[in-house]
């Protein structure tokens, strides 16, 4: 079937992004809005909006019944969940199926498997993917297991994700306490007290592979590097991953496809890997069973529209591309512009945008314009600025030029940090590890002290108000 009307069950830039593709495809959009978002830019871009509850996400964007009720009231053929919120929740996938509405995403069974880190790890092992030495811990044998793995070890929550429920243990004396605390926290936060131990690799890079599947065929759309992170939150992403070497790159892509085939993956998804640059080895981390924030860099080098492919797959079509149809041209980099203050420990900065200037002609995925509210209830992402070039150097220069033409007033942003990063030699050299951003922040802080006697790094783009 072809969808005539899609319920966009999300907010922020991804809502605007999904609406744009739907418009191009001639599909009507109805956007779910909480009370905080009734006059947002995505609400103005959608054909219609429908209220699903008060501002707090648990009472609106995380409420399965409200979302499915909105889909039925709107007469939607399908629900696009975006990322975050309910996008990987099998309860929404099942509730949509029960209500006769298509869920634009993987099957509920896949979501159950990928949502549980231990189950996902078992699938990865079965598909022949390398995983970090480690296993689930249950009390007493934690010490023996950690000794086998070797310190430092990482204690992970089975139900965690996106960096939540992780802690590094360097000293055997700290292990029992760390495992107990992690288990208690995981039980409270994720409803799942299971924790497991893994070898902690440092330095490490974070490289991921984009997949598309129709439930039978699975292809990859290349890799992305997301090593520029702070507390496991990605800040800059690029495609392809720089300085990887052909063997490693081919290995990562083949491994991701093998796992996708085992899962009989349907839709767009990402397999995340940890790359040990010293050993030239890679290890499976997790599967993100949704469209990702950083998908535009893949679109920039493949010329594809991933949301359009998601929709086509959810309409029940076979993949429209064979692996050999996918080609990669040039290099693309994306900066996440957030309402946060790097000079103040990345303190969030909710408020109202009074002016939003972006580079004309560049790809900017955003949900803010002059007058837009940045509510305290949701994440701080304001815009993604994406640049492509024939090579990485050209992409870097183009992105730096694009950021010079960005100005957001009314809330504090991290634009200054992005400018410093794009001017930094270590980033320009390529292939940075996940410890890079903290090193950059330390350098910038030291520079600020030298230049202004200021105690803090002052590279933030401070707006008015």
């Amino acid at each position, binding site marked *: 079937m072809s969808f005539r009307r899609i319920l966009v069950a999300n907010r922020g830039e991804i809502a605007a992004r999904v609406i744009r593709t739907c418009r191009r495809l001639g599909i009507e959009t109805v956007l779910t809005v909480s009370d905080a978002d009734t006059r947002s830019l995505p609400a103005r871009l959608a054909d219609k909006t429908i209220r699903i509850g008060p501002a707090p996400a648990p009472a609106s964007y995380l409420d399965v019944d409200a979302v499915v009720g909105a889909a039925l009231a709107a007469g939607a053929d399908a629900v696009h969940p975006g990322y975050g919120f309910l996008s990987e929740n099998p309860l929404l996938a099942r509730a949509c199926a029960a209500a006769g509405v298509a869920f634009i995403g993987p099957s509920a069974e896949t979501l159950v498997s990928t949502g549980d880190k231990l189950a996902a790890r078992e699938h990865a092992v079965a598909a022949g993917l390398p995983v970090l030495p480690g296993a689930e811990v249950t009390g007493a044998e934690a010490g023996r297991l950690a000794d086998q793995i070797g310190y430092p070890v990482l204690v992970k929550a089975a139900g965690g994700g996106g960096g939540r429920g992780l802690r590094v243990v360097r000293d055997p004396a700290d292990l029992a306490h760390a495992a107990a605390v992690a288990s208690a926290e995981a039980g409270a936060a994720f409803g799942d007290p299971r924790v497991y131990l893994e070898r902690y690799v440092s330095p490490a890079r974070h490289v991921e592979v984009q997949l598309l599947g129709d439930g039978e065929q699975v292809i990859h759309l290349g890799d992305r590097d997301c090593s520029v992170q702070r507390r496991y939150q990605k800040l800059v992403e690029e495609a392809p991953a720089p300085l990887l070497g052909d063997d490693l790159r081919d290995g990562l892509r083949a491994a991701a496809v093998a796992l996708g085939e085992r899962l009989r993956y349907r839709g767009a998804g990402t397999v995340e890997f940890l790359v040990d640059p010293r050993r030239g080895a890679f290890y499976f981390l997790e599967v993100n069973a949704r469209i990702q924030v950083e998908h535009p860099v893949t679109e920039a080098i493949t010329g594809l529209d991933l949301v359009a492919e998601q929709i086509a797959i959810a309409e029940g079509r076979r993949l429209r591309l064979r692996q050999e149809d996918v080609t990669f041209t040039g290099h693309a980099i994306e900066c996440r512009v957030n309402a946060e203050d790097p000079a103040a420990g990345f303190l969030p900065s909710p408020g109202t945008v009074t002016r939003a200037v972006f580079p004309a002609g560049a790809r900017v995925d955003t949900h803010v*314009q002059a007058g837009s509210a940045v509510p305290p209830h949701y994440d701080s992402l304001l815009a993604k600025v994406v640049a492509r070039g024939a090579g990485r150097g050209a992409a870097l220069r183009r992105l730096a030029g694009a950021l010079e033409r960005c100005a957001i007033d009314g809330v504090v942003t991290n634009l200054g940090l992005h400018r410093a990063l794009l001017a930094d030699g270590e980033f320009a050299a390529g292939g940075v590890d996940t410890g890079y951003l903290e090193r950059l922040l330390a350098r910038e802080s030291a520079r600020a002290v030298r230049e202004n006697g200021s105690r803090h790094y002052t590279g933030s783009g401070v707006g008015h108000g």
Partner: protein
Amino acid sequence: MELTNEDVADILAALDSLPYDELDLRTPRFRLTLRRAPGGGWTEESQVLADPVALAPAHPHRAPGAGEGRGAGAEAGTGAGEAGTGAAAEAAAGAGAEAAAGEGRAGSGRAGLAAVAAPLPGTFYRAPRPGAAPFVEVGDEVGEDTVVAIVETMKLMNSVHAGTRGRVAEICLGNGEFAAQGATLMLILPAGAGRPAGPPA
């Protein structure tokens, strides 16, 4: 309507050959301002002015098996532990009154009592995790650096310190309620203020 990137690129191509530095286009539904940037290229300020078209809100749909659907996606399919996040969800849902709760009492610290203010607008939590014991209760002794609450802003948990040595005299917001920036979260009776601590509960 919304101009696509391709539309803007076409306009820029036309503008580049003209001696103008700025284009300001305004219709009832959108506004577009293009300016030559000092370092080369153009900047764009666009604003969609069209009002959203709201459908009548729907009634929540109770699909079989979806009843316990509230809560984060993270507990996907485990079923066992919705209680933890569920409790937070319900608490937050109860905060429908929104800013009113916090703003009403902002700065209303009574004589002799020190107010603990919300550092940022956000959701007020009395405990470190759903189900855990609260940081403090009325009557508890606190130091300046004692963590007395968490305010969650933009998915970030910010610890709130007492700021004053003394005893907790009043907790002004309910767990999960929304606090406006600067709203009074708690009142502290400073040490040595010579008054019995805390009103009876």
